Structures are given as structure tokens and as C-alpha cells.
């Protein structure tokens, strides 16, 4: 009887250790988030702002009440899609930073449904299909260049982003332009809009599409043979090829699925975010949604469930930033939010961040000893 006690305690401890190991990715994300917020605070302080007041406004604007929560979730919805675009390709071993361009093209495709009439519901579905196909089509270019010519996807996707941007500028200015308002496209009719979920807020039913897509990606990557092949190819392409996996197929598949995600992101912005339901010239609503998605993907550890949580955080940053930029006598501009995002991603790039604090302290102590010893050595040399 007495022997059971310590044994059980030991087993409990072992379990605790396993739980901690499982949580450590989440801990790293939180730590990176804190580092990003600290860097942001330092920059605000240097430019003469009060970081505490700014973050207080941001936090209240992001999660201060049900309206704030709704707008944070609404801002997070497009980020879920673009984050999944990045993550699917990263799981397949590629850095697809083309969500930005695919999103523009998807949004334009969604707006084209305003040119014809369909019954409510069906109209929405047609718009989503258009956007998904358009996003996938735009991701086909980098995929083909990679497969046939070996062009690195970082270079090709960025070039496709710029081409998409000017193509969409053209479409907005000449093809889809609203005859009554030259600075925007024709608006998507109510039959093709996502209905608003909570009246008076920006939150629409698009949130369910985002969650469904995230769960679909999770199921596909972790519970199907195809998903296993994609992840294996990303984990070790050589081993995967010897194992009989068709790498070309996994590359193409992950690019196309990523493109579908980015296209849906564009649709969720123009069909699901009140009040414009159109693309405004200069693309202010679409700009940077693709790049922010990469930050969401990394903080979410490239896992669909993590991405949903991270999108809530980044959606909150965006929604709170909108409140922050009008708060107080010396409001902090919205751009601060992106500074914080960049710092978070930089911090996420350091896998040993969690272990760095003790290591840095040790290094500093070593340095101190070195400096203490130096005069002694010089005396000895004399």
C-alpha cells in the first residue's frame, strides 16, 4: 500500500510533463505575442505615445463587450482563410505568400455576380464558387512555374501578387465600375450577401464558412491519405518520394486548395463585411489581408484549430486598432497594429525564444566575468 503512493505521484508528474510539452507550442505563441506587444509599446513610447493607454483602448475596443467581440470575430474571418492558404502550403513544404493576390482576384470574381440575377441563397453560393475558382486559378501560375521550371514560390507568388493588384485596379476602374460612383465597383445585391448574424454589428454568417473550411482542412490533412501524403512531402520530400508519394501532385493540390482559401477570403470580405459590399478603388478593405494571414498562420502554429484562435487575436488587434486610432487626445494610428504583427512574426521565427531568457542571463554573466577578469590578466602580463 505504501509503495503505491510515490508511484502514483510519479505517474501524475509524468502526465503533467506531457501536458506541458503539449502546451509548449501554445506557450511559445503567447510569448511571441507578448514580445510583439512589447516591441510595439517601445516604438509607441519612442514616438511620444502612451503605450498603456493605447493598449487599454485597443483591448477595450477588441474584447470590451458583445459588440466589440462581434467585430473582432468579423475581422478575423478573412484572416482564417488566408492563414489556411499559407499553412496548407507550409505543411506541404512551401512558402506560398501569394494569398494577397489570390484574394484580390477572388474578391473581383465575387463582385461579378452583381451583373446577373439569381434567387437568394443560390446567388451567394454561385459567388462563393466563382471566388474559390478564381483564387485557385490565380494560384495555378506559381504552382505550374514551380513544377515545370523550378521557380521558387516566394518569388513567383510575389510577382503574381503585383500583377493581380494592377489587374484588379483595372477591373475596378473600367469593367466593374459603378456608373454612379466612379471610385467603387457595382455593389453585390442582397441576394448574394452573407446575412448579418448579429444585428447592428459587422458579424455575418461568413464566420460559419470560415470555421467549416478550417475543420475541412483539418480533416483533410490529418484524417485522409491525401492529407498524410501532403504532410509527409512537406516533412521530408526525399523520404516521401522514396515512399512512393507523388510530390508533384501534393504541390499542385496544396497550391489549389490554398488558392480556394484565399479566393473565399476575398469573397468573405466583399460579401460578408458590411456596409459597402463592393470593392473600393485602391482596395483598402483587401490590402494586407493576405499578409496578415501569414502572421495568423504562424501564431496558430499552422494548425487549423490554432489558426481559429490566432485569428480571434489578430481580428481583435484589427478591430481594437480601429478604436485605438480615435481614442484620447493623442491617438495611435492603426498602422501600429501591423508593426506589432511584424514583431510577433519575427519572434515566432525564433524557436528557442522560450529557452532564451535563461540562456541570455547566463551569457551576460559570462560576459561580466570576462570583464572582471580582464584587468587581472593585464596586471599579470606586466
Amino acid at each position, binding site marked *: 500500500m505504501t509503495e503505491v503512493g510515490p508511484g502514483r505521484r510519479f505517474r501524475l508528474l509524468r502526465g503533467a510533463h506531457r501536458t506541458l510539452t503539449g502546451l509548449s507550442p501554445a506557450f511559445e505563441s503567447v510569448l511571441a505575442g507578448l514580445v510583439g506587444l512589447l516591441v510595439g509599446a517601445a*516604438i509607441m513610447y519612442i*514616438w511620444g505615445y502612451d503605450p498603456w493607454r493605447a493598449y487599454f483602448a485597443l483591448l477595450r475596443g477588441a474584447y470590451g463587450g458583445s459588440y466589440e467581440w462581434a467585430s473582432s470575430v468579423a475581422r478575423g474571418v478573412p484572416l482564417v482563410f488566408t492563414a489556411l492558404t499559407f499553412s496548407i502550403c507550409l505543411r506541404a513544404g512551401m*512558402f506560398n*505568400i501569394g494569398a494577397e493576390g489570390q484574394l484580390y482576384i477572388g474578391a473581383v470574381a465575387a463582385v461579378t455576380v452583381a451583373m446577373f440575377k439569381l434567387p437568394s441563397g443560390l446567388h451567394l453560393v454561385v459567388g462563393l464558387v466563382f471566388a474559390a475558382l478564381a483564387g485557385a486559378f490565380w494560384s495555378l501560375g506559381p504552382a505550374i*512555374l514551380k513544377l515545370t*521550371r*523550378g*521557380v*521558387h514560390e*516566394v*518569388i*513567383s507568388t*510575389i*510577382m*503574381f501578387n*503585383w*500583377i493581380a493588384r*494592377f*489587374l484588379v*485596379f*483595372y477591373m475596378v*476602374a*473600367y469593367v466593374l465600375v459603378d456608373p454612379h460612383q466612379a471610385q467603387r465597383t457595382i455593389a453585390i445585391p442582397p441576394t448574394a450577401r452573407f446575412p448579418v448574424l448579429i444585428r447592428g454589428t459587422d458579424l455575418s454568417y461568413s464566420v460559419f464558412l470560415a470555421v467549416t473550411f478550417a475543420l475541412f482542412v483539418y480533416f483533410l490533412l490529418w484524417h485522409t491519405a491525401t492529407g498524410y501524403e501532403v504532410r509527409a512531402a512537406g516533412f521530408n520530400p526525399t523520404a516521401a518520394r522514396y515512399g512512393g508519394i507523388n510530390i508533384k501532385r501534393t504541390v499542385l493540390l496544396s497550391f489549389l486548395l490554398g488558392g480556394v482559401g484565399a479566393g473565399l477570403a476575398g469573397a468573405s470580405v466583399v460579401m460578408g463585411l458590411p456596409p459597402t459590399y463592393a470593392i473600393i478603388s485602391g482596395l483598402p478593405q483587401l490590402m*494586407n489581408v493576405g*499578409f*496578415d494571414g*501569414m*502572421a495568423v498562420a*504562424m501564431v496558430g502554429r499552422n494548425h487549423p484549430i490554432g489558426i481559429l484562435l490566432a485569428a480571434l487575436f489578430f481580428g481583435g488587434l484589427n478591430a481594437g486598432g480601429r478604436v485605438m486610432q480615435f481614442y484620447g487626445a493623442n491617438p495611435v*494610428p492603426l*498602422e*501600429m*497594429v*501591423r*508593426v*506589432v*504583427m*511584424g*514583431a*510577433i*512574426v*519575427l*519572434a*515566432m*521565427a*525564433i*524557436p*528557442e*525564444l522560450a529557452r*532564451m531568457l535563461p540562456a541570455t542571463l547566463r551569457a551576460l554573466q559570462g560576459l561580466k566575468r570576462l570583464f572582471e577578469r580582464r584587468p587581472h590578466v593585464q596586471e599579470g602580463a606586466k
Partner: protein
Amino acid sequence: MSWTYILDLLRISLHAMVPITLAATGEIIGETAGLFNIGLEGILLIGAFVGALGAEAAGGPIPGLLIGMGVGALIGFLFSVIATYWKGTQMIAGIGINLFALGFVAFGLIQLGAPGFHAVPKEVQLIKLKTPMGSISPMIFVTLVLPLLAYWFLNKTKAGLILKATGENPEAADVAGINVNLTRILATTFGGALAGLGGAYMSVAWIGSVTKEISAGRGFIALATVVFSGLNPLLGLLGGFIFGFFQSLATWIKTLPSKPIPWQFVEMLPYIVTLLVVSGAIGRVRFPKALGVPYRRE
């Protein structure tokens, strides 16, 4: 279509070549040592911003260029420490630099007054040399000489050989007594400095203003130039000129009175050419074996 038009186009191309070639030359040095820095775009952007700030604060263009260079070196240093001693993923760190630069420059421009645009006063811009061809920035000559120096450094000096060894076979370099991580940090810091100089050139010596999109993909075009060059700085110079030419051609077509094509399509030209050139260059070139892989001692 007279000769003056063509000379004009050539002159603008030489100016557009500078930031691409500077960033590409620095990146060639960095990639030779084994680090792949996709944060060039962000370094160009921040370099342009702090270069303009520095020039105005110090009242002259040279300090502005030097500050751009210094900040570029600092970012390159941070990136390389993350990628070596801290064993971070280089791609993610580079993406982080780009995101940070997007926010930082947009934020900084708001602090300077008008959001999104800041004009650099004429007095603190780098003077242009008056030649029969028109006014030419002295930075063009720096840009023409640097790749030659880089070529000599990489191929004719011992330090260049050490750099190649760290990129090609870090284990062997380590056994030979070379500090792999330190070599990589030095190379990438230098690369960052050149990209920062290229950025500062854009605001202080060429365009004369800072916008939040002043880099306009040039950092990635520089990466494409590096792919095209196969890590040969002389080909990097040629590539920089080709890309500079197509950027200028786009600007030039836009100023034509007849407007043959909508401007949006003209703007796509440099990016389409980049894709074509890169997809043509692959297969011909070979990159260091350990490029992009953090070095760990067994």
C-alpha cells in the same frame, strides 16, 4: 522616336538599376555564405524611410545614405543572428521583417504629417551630375563598381573562399577552423547594409520622396536577380539593369501622349518580365548546398 528618347530611357534605366543591383549584390554575398534573406523588401522600405529622416536631420544626403546603410546592416544582423545562433526559420524571419517594415514605415509616415507620402526637401537630396546625356546620380557609378569588387572578393580572395566554404559545406568549414555562424552573420550584415543603401538611395538620391510602397517589390525582384545571376555579381549587375530597364520602360510608356495600353497593364510589365527571366534562368544555375539550412554542430 529620336535618339534623345532612347538616351533618356537608358538614363532612367540606369537609375532604376541601382536599388535592385545593390540589394542583389548584397544578397549574393549573403547567399554564398548560406543565408537566404527574403526580408530584402522590408530592408529597402525601411532604408528609404530612415535614409530620408537621416538626410533631413543631418542636413545632407551623405549622412542619410549612411544611416540607411547602418539600419539595413542592423536588420541584416538581427536576421542573421536569428538564422544562425537562434536557429530560427529564415523564411519566417524574412516574412517578419517585411511585415514589420510595412507597418513601421506606414506608421512613421503618419508621424511625419501626411499619411502615406513624405517629400524629401531638394536641399538634402544627393546632387546629380550634369552630363551631356542629362543629369546622372553619382550612385550609379558606385553601383557599377560594387559588383566588380564583389566578384573580385568572392573569386580572388581567401575571405571569399571561406564564404563559399560556409555556404557549400559548413561541416568542412567548421573542421577547418572557420566560425560558420560568425561568417554567415558578417556576410548577411553586409548584404543588409547594401540593401539599406539601396533603399536610402531611392528616397534621397532618386525619387525624392518616401511612400509606404516605395519598394514596390524591388526586394523580391532583387531576389529574382540573384536567381538569374547564379551568385555571380557580374551577372547580377546585368540582371539589375534588365529589370531596371523594364521598370523604366513601364514608366516611359505611361508618359507617352498616345496611351496605347491602359496604365494598369503597363505597370505589370516588370513583374511579368521577372517571372519570364527567372523561369528561363532556372536549370542553368546552381546554388550552395547548405543554402537556407541552419548549421548545427553534431
